[in-house]
């Protein structure tokens, strides 16, 4: 079985691993020169299926929970230290609401927050701790998968803009994300923005989310004092540079989480446009010899393994 995959973002790479692991001869075609233009490149890389229950459909947690073990098997940099959720005292109601809609967490007090993340000691009176969740750095994870694929004999041709009709293979899997809108008409773009900062004054060991009625924030530690700040979600297909308003919202929220962020250096302002279907749920579809894997929305790393396995079953067993 020879399978051609379009797109070397997280969906394409994970699908290649699943197919090559089942014995297929796999080739990936990527129009960009590297991974840096995939929306996965600016993703948070949080494997947080239970936190996502706060806003996502129940299927997301069900499909996403096995992803933690998948990434631990395929990427040594996967860190399982849980997720910490905090809110300012005046927003305590947000914590109650978050807790009502999620599971697999422990409500924790100030002392426990300080024990988990000493930098946050004394700053928050209550929080929620999701001990089973994990995170990874997409900028290490994607190249690691590419290296693993190379070792499995999979070639990735970068800088090649091919469509499914011109790929010489028994089957194709289209993992182009938003670029597949030429075929999947109900795909839309949902814009996300992130800021990378560096601070030698703050040490966090796990993703921390600050709840707020207006501006949600997550901070994901990348090591060496580098942190990714994210959380904006805009109904827009634009990949134009970040607006001042979004930057202010994210930076203000980070400052509210810890005042030392005021002295952090801004390393990068990033924008990604995530592909989503109208229900914000992922799909694996088949049209003839072509399979389409798309609509991972804001859950690329969380949902790619389950969807890649669905695609692989479709290709090998036609189910």
């Amino acid at each position: 079985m020879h399978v051609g995959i379009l797109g070397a973002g997280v969906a394409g790479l994970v699908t290649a691993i699943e197919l090559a692991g089942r014995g297929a001869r796999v080739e990936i075609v990527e129009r960009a020169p590297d991974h840096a233009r995939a929306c996965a490149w600016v993703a948070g890389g949080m494997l947080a299926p239970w936190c996502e229950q706060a806003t996502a459909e129940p299927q997301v947690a069900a499909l996403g929970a096995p992803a933690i073990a998948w990434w631990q098997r395929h990427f040594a940099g996967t860190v399982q230290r849980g997720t910490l959720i905090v809110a300012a005292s005046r927003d305590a109601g947000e914590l109650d609401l978050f807790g009502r809609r999620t599971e697999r967490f422990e409500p924790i007090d100030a002392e426990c927050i300080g024990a988990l993340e000493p930098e946050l000691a004394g700053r928050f009176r209550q929080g929620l701790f999701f001990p089973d969740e994990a995170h990874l750095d997409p900028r290490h994870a994607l190249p690691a998968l590419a290296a693993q694929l190379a070792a499995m004999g999979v070639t990735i041709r970068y800088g090649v803009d091919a469509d499914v009709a011109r790929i010489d293979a028994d089957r194709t899997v289209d993992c182009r994300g938003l670029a597949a809108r030429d075929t999947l008409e109900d795909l839309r773009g949902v814009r996300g923005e992130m800021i990378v900062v560096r601070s030698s004054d703050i040490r966090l060991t796990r993703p921390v989310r600050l709840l707020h009625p207006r501006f949600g924030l997550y901070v994901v530690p990348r090591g060496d004092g580098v942190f990714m700040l994210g959380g904006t979600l805009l109904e827009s297909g634009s990949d134009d540079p970040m607006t001042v308003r979004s930057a202010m919202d994210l930076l203000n929220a980070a400052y509210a989480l810890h005042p030392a962020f005021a002295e952090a250096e801004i390393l990068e302002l990033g924008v990604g446009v995530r592909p989503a279907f109208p229900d914000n749920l992922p799909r694996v579809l088949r049209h003839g010899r072509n399979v389409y894997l798309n609509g991972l929305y804001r859950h690329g790393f969380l949902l790619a393994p389950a969807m890649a396995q669905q695609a692989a079953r479709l290709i090998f067993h036609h189910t």
Partner: protein
Amino acid sequence: MNLYGIELASRLLLGSARYPSPAVLAEAVRASGSEVVTVSLRREAGTQRSGQDFWSLIRDLGVRVLPNTAGCHSIKEAVTTAKMARDIFHTAWIKLEVIGDADMLQPDVFGLVEAAAELAADGFEVFPYTTEDLVVADRLLQAGCRVLMPWGAPIGSGRGLNNVFGLRALRARFPDVPLIVDAGIGRPSHAVQAMELGVDGVLLNTAVAMAGDPVAMAGAFARAIEAGRAGFEAQPMEPRDFAVPSTPVAGTAWLA
């Protein structure tokens, strides 16, 4: 309810922001029976072209679109956004928000009156998001508004009606102007209370969008608004400070 010459069967206007997904939004609109959906231009997209996916989803809902100027803090910003909205949605309707306080999202009523006059002169049919202030309401009508949208409480606060007396006074002073309570409604009971005061309609967003089950909540609000209106029209009794037996007791035989 008649808004700018358009007869509407539903008295519920629904906002389109912050739903879990566009699919849930579409289902919530159906469940609400609402015939008018508001949409923000500024918040959902930085530039005119980029929000098109979402705007075409809104158009596909098959209901009347009431674009809004949410997030605008100056007259100029609000007027520009209104004109952009007219081009995109081909409607003269505009829900005018000019925010004066970033924390409470309280309207800047001075800027609001000025922007409303400018837009009305340009042919817009303006739905101003205002406070319950009688004088401001009068100025908005002078500026050319034919509908008023007083707040119940600050946007997104879900606190219900903060000033029942003020809303009642507004109703009494302007009996023939459509009044839509916009903002601050958190629960169906708040909507019932507003409708029982005799306002013409209610505009909601967060209370439905951020509910655990937005579709079910949309249906709950639809029924609450119908019940509140029916209660108002049926002329409710006045509360009394003593008990009055509902069955006359005079002449009743007492069997001891």
